[in-house]
């Protein structure tokens, strides 16, 4: 028994103040030591500690319940991927088919097209989305005229609230053969004939990425701006004294200061690389560019639930989750190695 435990058990009726962090850690290490050295069959210390921290435990309970109900219990549905699920039968009356749906999936050439498109557009979106948001935030941060800065920021994140249905229609209209973009390009003499942008499979990824950047840059910049606001002004002053230009200050002070924020956000976003959704691709795509527009979610919708193949759809879902976990683990360990902020 450690000294602390003795002290508290001496006065069990007194309300226990939340232990300071340092002390908690000490309790933790003490308990670990105890476990290693002596057996405690009744687990007395464990319950004692639990009763000591009951306020904290109670507070965390709703979130644990939420987590279990909405995140863990549904995972049980994964078993469906190994069945030939037919909704008219109960869960345990289904026919078990083992890895059949995964085999079907990996034997399907369309799936690889979908995977390539998903990762392609995901990576493009991540690179250009992050870069544009950081650059935009840097530029806004340099604005000294406060009112203008606020206005620009507000206007720039408004497109975030516009639905993709509307954005897609704007994009298609702008890029149509008698649309604004073609008119400008022709009148500037850059091209002779209007380009039918939406009919060019080679341009589809670019169009999706650009419309995404247009829509989300302002919104994504908010978090970087907030991080920049926290940089110590003394650093800038010192740099100024040393004769650093505005660009130098950006490079040597602002960016290094928000580096950990950038890395954490990158890791989180890379985990979602494969979950790029399908709205953009479905709304902007058409039959001509389908080979470049088919993404995994669209494939799962058309060939999974849309065809009543719940098990097949689940198999796709599991595959996506596995890829996400692998991506996160890789990024996290890379971040760990270069000694930067990491998620866990």
């Amino acid at each position, binding site marked *: 028994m450690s000294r602390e435990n003795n002290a508290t058990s001496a006065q069990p009726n007194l309300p226990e103040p939340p232990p300071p962090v340092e002390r908690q850690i000490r309790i933790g290490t003490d308990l670990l030591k105890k476990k290693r050295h002596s057996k405690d069959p009744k687990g007395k210390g464990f319950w004692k500690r*639990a009763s000591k921290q009951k306020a904290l435990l109670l507070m965390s309970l709703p979130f644990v319940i939420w987590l279990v109900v909405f995140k863990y219990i549904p995972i049980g549905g994964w078993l469906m991927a190994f069945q030939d699920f037919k909704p008219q039968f109960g869960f345990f009356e289904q026919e078990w088919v083992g890895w059949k749906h995964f085999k079907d999936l990996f034997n399907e050439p369309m799936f690889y097209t979908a995977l390539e498109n998903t990762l392609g557009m995901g990576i493009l979106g991540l690179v250009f989305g992050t870069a544009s948001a950081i650059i935009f935030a840097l530029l806004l941060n340099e604005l000294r005229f406060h009112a203008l800065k606020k206005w620009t920021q507000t206007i720039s994140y408004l497109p975030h609230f516009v639905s993709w249905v509307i954005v897609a*229609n704007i994009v298609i209209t702008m890029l*149509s053969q008698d649309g604004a973009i073609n008119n400008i390009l022709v009148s500037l003499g850059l091209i002779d004939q209007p380009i*039918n942008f939406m009919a060019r499979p080679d341009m589809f990824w670019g169009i999706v990425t650009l419309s995404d950047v247009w829509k989300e840059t302002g919104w994504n910049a908010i978090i970087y701006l907030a991080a920049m606001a926290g940089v110590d002004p003394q650093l800038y002053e010192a740099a100024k004294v040393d004769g650093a230009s505005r660009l130098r200050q950006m490079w040597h002070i602002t960016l290094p200061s928000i580096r950990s924020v950038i890395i954490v956000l990158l890791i989180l976003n890379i985990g979602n690389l494969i979950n790029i959704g399908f709205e953009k691709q479905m709304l902007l795509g058409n039959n001509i560019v*389908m080979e470049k527009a088919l993404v995994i979610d669209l494939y799962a919708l058309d060939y999974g639930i849309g065809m009543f193949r719940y098990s097949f759809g689940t198999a796709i879902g599991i595959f996506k989750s596995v890829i996400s976990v692998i991506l996160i683990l890789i990024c996290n360990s890379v971040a760990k190695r270069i000694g930067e902020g990491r998620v866990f």
Partner: protein
Amino acid sequence: MKRKLSNWALLLIILLGIFVLAACNDEETSSEDDSNTDNEEPSAEDPLTLTFFSADGTEKEFNDPVAQKITEETGIKLELDYPVGGNDEAIPLMIASGDYPDLIFAKGDIGKLIEAGGVIKLNDLIEEKGDNLKAMYGDQLNRLRNSLEDPSIYTVGTYGVENAFWETSGTFQIQMDVLRELGYPEIRTLEEFEAALTEYYEKYPEIDGQKTIPLSLLGSDWRWLITVGNPAGFAAGKPDDGQWAVNDDTGEATYKFLLPEFKEYFKWLNGMNAKGLLDPESFTHTYDTYISKLSSGRVLSIADQSWNIGDADKALVADGKEWKTYAPLPVTLNEDIKSQGLKDYGFAGGWGIAISSTSEHQEEAFEFLDWMASEEAQILVNWGIEGENYDIVDGKRVMQEDDRERMNTDKDYGKETGVGYYVYPFPQWGNGAVDSTGQSISPNTEQDIIDNFNSAEKEVLKEYEMENWIDWFPSPEELERSKHGTVSNYTIPAGSDLQIIQQKADDLTEQQITQAVLGDPANFDQAWDKMIADLEAMNIEQANQEMTKMVQDTMELWGTKE
């Protein structure tokens, strides 16, 4: 510390898991107790509400005069539900949740409902109390059967039993003005069609200051099937069998794009594109853009269903541009091929309204459907209410003048008054049927259709010395009634190889044909051969065989096989 906490979490998870499972079980049993079983007879004062999902429904309350009359007669009120935004997943989601409405019109998804046990067999009900339905279907009742393995009847309704053919839809249509300008030429083949468009286009490169579009299609979404895929079949003289071409005598089915006739058609379309006669945005513009192009009057020809361009047609007439509306043409690849615009597919079973297995009012729902097939109901839903929508003059029904007018011009007429709104997809006698006094059951007769042509149509018809556009087309008698119905109404088993292969083949052809059409004519043959090779690689032959079997089974089921 870390490890201890995760033990804690584990314990909590297990405890909660048990807790939640127990809670779920409780809920199930208690909800069973709550379900009230009221056995009262529905009446007009205290109507019984049935929920009705229609795959073709639109937002509407069941409260128009015709609906009120239906409630008065049957004691049934319907709560109408519809898929939002053309949602394909409505039925699968319904099955996944197990939450069915009382009545379901699922169109092609009915097979999924049957497989999921979501709908009930109607055979016994029809035998016991389906007198109106039996009288209506007569010897075609067999066409309602599901399959050879399960020859039960699950659905009733959708299409009329006795059909007349006064209109065509889906073939090429050309602007009336083109016909007038060129002195009313005979247009039978693609060659003549192209020549007419070229001549007019050279004369009028611009219409109202905007560039003239000789031919526009809409291939950017599912309408690819009706403006690109189906017109190819019509040009090749194939009746509409969805994505299939079926030999009506042997029942042999082939995925239609494998046939050389289709290649010929698309080669022609490829040439149209190379010559600048095809709207370059045909495969990228949205439906709204397409309709606004048509409404501007600068599109000389289309290949579309009449119902798809209704808005553009109304807009053109409203703008006084009657000459910019369209006349249907019996255009085919060559003169030896008959246009199938007036093909009689017979009563197409397969689709229809089903009663859900979870409904607490199955008997009432069936009685309602049976009542809809009665003469009284058919007159009500087709003509409306006597004294309000129609009068009886000399023992004959005559539509009131303003109703007649609104029926033809106001697209909200049916929705507001209910007249004609409850004909499809309910059991219906068909526009060729007559009632017990020998009068037509439908207020629309061929004469009405002719009377309702706009001024330009009337003049063009006069020039060609015709009564109606159908005079251009080979008659239904000449084409003979289809022995297998049409594959478009077949229910392909959910999750079957046939369904998956067809879906993959459809995706592939939509993409590759589009690319081939838009590509360089020099590369067309190569692109087409590649597509055929890809189709063969995805085992299209197996799909052909399975579909052939399905057609032959249907013919056997219906007793039309020789």
